[in-house]
């Protein structure tokens, strides 16, 4: 049954989803200018998952993210300007410009890093969950991953390890239908990620990843399970990405109108607005006000990032070791 959320919680959730959306939509434009180097994987379309999951966490809980990590970072509280500057490769970035989009991390926030290696986050999250268990303070570790990541040996090993050690780890699988240019219905032999994971001995749920409330409620149940020492869980959220796998992807593997249709039918922001107006939880005015604040923040973040200095050459050989 649905969990009650305060007006502030709802406003906060909307603000985060909107921030992720605008962060990504803006990046999509900025990348065209050629000013942003390397690989950027945009999270637009999946916001409700990151936000619905992280709404239950505080800075003492851990998350481990993926190559498509901007949304998870924002939802876990990473500094927007520090993220933008990192993506622009500036010295003021969260990683001094050394990591870039695929490696944004903020250890003070319990954000143990986006990760360029698909599936590699799962064992790391399990390790963080072990640390949480040893501390015995009811903390959890969330491993974010996609429908493609769950075919990686590291993820299977991590799932079994978490079950054997009965760790407070939750594997959040964002099933957006594709691993790069390959359909999940092809690459996941069993076609059913939740059921396959459940067979590892975990509590498993599936929910609509475009509906913030569905994600929030599913996670409430799983976090209760994990925090109370009952062991690891898995959540499969069906969702979609509004852009290509990475920027520049012609997306020939998708039906012509797929994205257009999904933007109409599966937009978590629209769905959220509809829900909160239906039950009169929030008025459009408050949400519109947030929209404007968010846009202003993103503008600032981009402007400051572009104005920020690049790291100096000395930085090439610093931070390799604590001491060497």
């Amino acid at each position, binding site marked *: 049954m649905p969990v009650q959320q305060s007006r502030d919680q709802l406003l906060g959730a909307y603000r985060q989803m909107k921030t992720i959306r605008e962060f990504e939509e803006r990046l999509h434009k900025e990348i065209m200018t050629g000013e942003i180097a390397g690989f950027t994987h945009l999270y637009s379309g999946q916001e409700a998952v990151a936000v619905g999951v992280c709404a239950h966490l505080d800075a003492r809980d851990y998350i481990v993210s993926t190559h498509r990590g901007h949304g998870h970072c924002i939802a876990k509280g990473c500094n927007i300007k520090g993220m933008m500057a990192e993506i622009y490769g500036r010295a003021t970035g969260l990683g001094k*410009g050394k990591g870039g989009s*695929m*490696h944004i991390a903020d250890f003070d926030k319990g954000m143990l890093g986006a990760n360029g290696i698909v599936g590699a986050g799962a064992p790391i999250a399990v390790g963080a969950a072990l640390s949480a268990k040893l501390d015995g303070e009811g903390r959890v570790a969330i491993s974010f991953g996609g429908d*493609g990541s769950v075919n*990686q040996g590291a993820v299977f090993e991590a799932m079994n390890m978490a079950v054997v050690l009965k760790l407070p780890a939750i594997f959040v699988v964002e099933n957006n239908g594709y691993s*790069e240019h*390959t359909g999940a219905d092809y690459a996941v032999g069993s076609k059913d990620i939740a059921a396959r994971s459940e067979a590892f001995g975990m509590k498993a749920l599936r929910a609509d990843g475009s509906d913030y409330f569905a994600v929030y409620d599913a996670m409430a149940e799983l976090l209760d399970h994990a925090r109370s020492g009952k062991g690891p869980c898995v959540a499969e959220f069906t969702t979609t990405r509004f852009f290509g796998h990475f920027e520049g992807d012609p997306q020939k*593997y998708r039906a012509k109108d797929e994205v257009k249709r999904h933007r109409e039918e599966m937009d978590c922001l629209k769905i959220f607005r509809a829900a909160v107006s239906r039950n009169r939880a929030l008025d459009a005015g408050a949400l519109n006000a947030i929209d404007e604040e968010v846009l202003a923040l993103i503008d600032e973040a981009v402007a400051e990032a572009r104005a920020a200095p690049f790291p100096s050459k000395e930085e090439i050989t610093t931070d*390799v070791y604590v001491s060497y």
Partner: protein
Amino acid sequence: MAIKSYREALNEALHAEMERDPTVFVCGEDVSGGAGGTSGEREASGGIFGVTAGLLPRFGEQRVIDTPISENAIVGLAVGASLAGKRGIAEIMFADFLGLALDQTMNQAAKFRYMSGGKAKCPVVIRVPYGAGMNMAAQHSQTMYQIITSIPGLKVAMPSNPADAKGLLTSAIRDDDPVVFFEHKAMYGRKGDVPDGEYLVPFGQAALLRSGDSATIIAMGRMVSFAEKALEALAADNIRCDLIDLRTTSPLDEETILDSVEKTGRVVVVDECPPRCSLASDIAGFIATHGFSSLRAPVAQVTAPHSPVPFSKDLERSYVPGPTEIEAAVRRVVSYK
């Protein structure tokens, strides 16, 4: 002869060898793309770098195999099939991901023949895009060939130009031993003359691309073009060098190296790897042991620093060894008294 890109040259070799030998197949993530999903188009990508484009329509799903993200099993798939009479070509999307597939590469493919006393044959090719230069950061930019070169039982090819790309890949596919084939990501678009029709470049034979008495420059992969740039600048001061492109780091063409060192007595090794246990140190050490009597100056090693690959543009640019560092190193060894 026709002007083609490094990518086109590789693609041409794949088409020709699959045409020629029905036991050849390719497998990997998105080698065709478009499996499953809602696509009308079955070949949606032809490989993330386009190297396998056109193979699916021509040879079909039986021989152009899209796989899940399972690097160790991808290599194992090609290894197992190659032990069972086929010639598997596995694509590991980025060389860095060999970290997940090293067991099948190092403990399986490399050792079957030896452990079976010569009974096994494992003619597998593992294609790995490698190297820095595209701001892909620390997990998508590594060289890895120093690691693979250290493993007995594997052969290592790394073409520095489109013609070698075609000739070395053709040889790799026909080779009866496991080959790890290193393609530099930043060179896929590079154009050059490529011989038409069947073209093979033999393994273990380095190319002497330039001749000169001032010094010997030894390079491989993308570093070769940087060495050529450096030589242009040096020509102005009448510094002329032998430029040796190793083409394959295992087997290594020791003879060509030693002949040149004997002539010049001065050596610069250029390698994209970080310094430790690198190809640069491997060659420098080889010369210190086998070419010492001809050496008239310290062997200069031009490598990346001992650090991961940074993301930010300028950092990455200075991280990767370039013409400037090579030129400086040549001047150093040439002027050494």
